């Protein structure tokens, strides 16, 4: 049979989970990572990264809204997908994840954004006209109390939400890791390390994304780029990446050492079918090169401009590398037969429901949503709009 080497079970010819299912952990990973970056400022008082606080929250929201779409396109019966909320099977990680997603979207993200932006929404309500005015009014739920006492309440609640949000973010993406890691039938997936590896690679990808967005948006709006902020973000990216890399190496070394039943088949698969995506893209280009770049910044002094370029390169390579990691887990886990005696091939189509085209569209969509969100809920106040207005300037609600 074309594309098949060795022996596979007759039902294993076609891959069950396509590139869309690769997109899903990538997107939720970006969400979790962006949120963790935002929480650095709010909970751990890393004030220097304040310029990216609101941007990180909006990014997380934009991506989380898109996250269910690849799943809906993949399902055989998307019209029945709400059954997961109506009759969730409590033993199923996938079912329970539906609630984790809902919790995170509503309680953590939407509520936190609401409490943080509420003052701005009320002011916007007061100063706009027509349809925009009604829209802002709806978003404030009709309450226009922005007295300092009310804002203090908002700040307190926002803090609590962020504190709750951190373990929720861990749960969000750790759960996705558990969905794979708990499948005993698949030795490429089945490891207790999977949720942790997923989580740390999520943090890495989220931080990289917010860093890149911050650089891009600041440049687009001709705002000054806050170098201490950027340097701190890059440092956190470096630390997270070190942990992520160590975890993945631990898994690899463990597998090679124990060399159990599945090892020979998996090893062969990595050397052949997954060579480019795993060794070249994920490990070399996507992990070692960015790590080296970020490490260089920690050790040597570079000019602002050079550092910006290094960060941009490291950020882009990181995102590519983390996507490759998702690909290698999801697709790689289906390329070998459960008989350990053969391999199949992934034939990705282009313009079908689960092909490359919808995948590309789904990756572009969150940026479009983000563009809309930054118009509705501008984060520019944090990002250096203080130029001439600092002495009696705007105190954004984070400090109120």
């Amino acid at each position, binding site marked *: 049979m074309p594309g098949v080497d060795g022996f596979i*079970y007759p039902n294993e010819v076609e891959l069950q989970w396509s590139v869309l299912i690769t997109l899903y952990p990538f997107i939720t990973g970006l969400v979790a990572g962006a949120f963790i970056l935002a929480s650095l400022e709010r909970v751990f008082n890393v004030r220097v990264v304040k310029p990216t606080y609101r941007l990180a929250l909006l990014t997380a929201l934009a991506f989380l809204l898109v996250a269910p779409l690849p799943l809906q396109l*993949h399902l*055989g*019966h*998307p019209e029945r997908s709400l059954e997961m909320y109506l009759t969730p*099977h409590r033993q199923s990680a*996938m079912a329970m994840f539906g609630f984790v997603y809902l919790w995170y979207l509503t309680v953590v993200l939407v509520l936190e954004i609401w409490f943080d932006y509420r003052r701005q929404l009320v002011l916007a309500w007061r100063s706009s006209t027509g349809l925009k005015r009604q829209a802002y009014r709806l978003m404030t739920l009709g309450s226009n109390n922005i007295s300092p006492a009310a804002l203090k309440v908002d700040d307190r609640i926002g803090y609590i939400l962020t504190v709750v949000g951190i373990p929720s973010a861990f749960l969000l993406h750790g759960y996705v890791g558990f969905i794979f890691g708990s499948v005993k039938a698949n030795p490429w997936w089945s490891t207790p390390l999977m949720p942790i590896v997923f989580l740390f690679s999520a943090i890495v990808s989220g931080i990289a994304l917010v860093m890149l967005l911050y650089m891009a948006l600041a440049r687009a709006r001709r705002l000054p780029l806050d170098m201490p902020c950027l340097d701190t973000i890059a440092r956190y990216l470096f630390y997270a990446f070190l942990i992520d890399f160590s975890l993945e190496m631990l898994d690899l070394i463990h597998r090679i050492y124990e060399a159990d039943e599945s090892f020979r088949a998996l090893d062969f698969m990595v050397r052949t079918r997954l060579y480019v995506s795993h060794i070249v893209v994920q490990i070399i280009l996507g992990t070692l090169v960015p790590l080296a770049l970020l490490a260089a910044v920690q050790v040597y002094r570079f000019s602002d401009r050079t550092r910006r370029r290094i960060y941009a390169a490291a950020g882009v390579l990181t995102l590519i590398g983390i996507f490759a990691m998702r690909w290698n887990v999801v697709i790689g886990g289906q390329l070998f037969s459960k008989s*350990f005696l053969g391999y199949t091939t992934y034939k990705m189509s282009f313009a079908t429901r689960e092909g490359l085209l919808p995948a590309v569209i789904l990756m572009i969509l969150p940026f479009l949503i983000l563009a809309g969100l930054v118009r509705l809920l501008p984060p520019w106040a944090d990002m250096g709009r203080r130029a001439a207005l600092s002495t009696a300037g705007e105190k954004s609600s984070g400090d109120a």
Partner: protein
Amino acid sequence: MEQDRRAFLADAGRWLMLTGAATLAWDYVVAGQPENSPNYRVTDHWWGMIIDIDKCIGCGNCVRACKAENDVPLEPGHFRTWVERYQVASDDLDHPSVDSPNGAYDGFPPVEQAAGNVKAFFVPKLCNHCAHSPCVQVCPVGATFASPDGVVLVDKSYCIGCRYCVQACPYGCRFIDHRTMTVDKCDLCYHRITRGLTTACCEACPTGARQLVDLKNPSDPVHAFLNSNAVHVLKPQMATGAKVFYRALDGVVR
């Protein structure tokens, strides 16, 4: 008064008709519910299968019978049951040569030359109807489940087609039916065994290599079989509680 009486009669007539219809419908419903059928009580049975490797001749009758009985698509990748052939050289036990041409739907190609220093045998495979099924565990909506009589079934009107169960099955016995975009797999010919018949694959097997067994039935031959033979299940390390028991299954079989 006229109006009232007419209205009353109309209502009564309607009520009678509906009751009659409901009664008919109820019979239909009851007939399909094995637990209410006169001769079938769900709790009296615990189904499994025994397969004797020494008797399988690789004819593929079971594969054809299953596809005919259960309206399984003939395209590749849609098998409720299939037969694998293992050829193991005694000096290379780790690398058996395994094939299953179209799931053995057309049997196996005839031998061209006499086999050399090689042990060869057939292994029919199907859903193991596990007592601790990993596929049932992962279904997010409750579309696949183990019936009270030990058969793992799929509710095709409820399945959302997420394919998590296909990933979770260690034996590769599930597939997506592209006509319905839901999951499908061997259901132990549930519509037959609840009527006292045996499964289509067992019916068609010419050598009796496959036999349906009822572990709860004290007079079923399975008890003597299990007591007097060394039996194996596939992938015992997965602890799935598989209920398809193989006699003379070689250790090389995956």
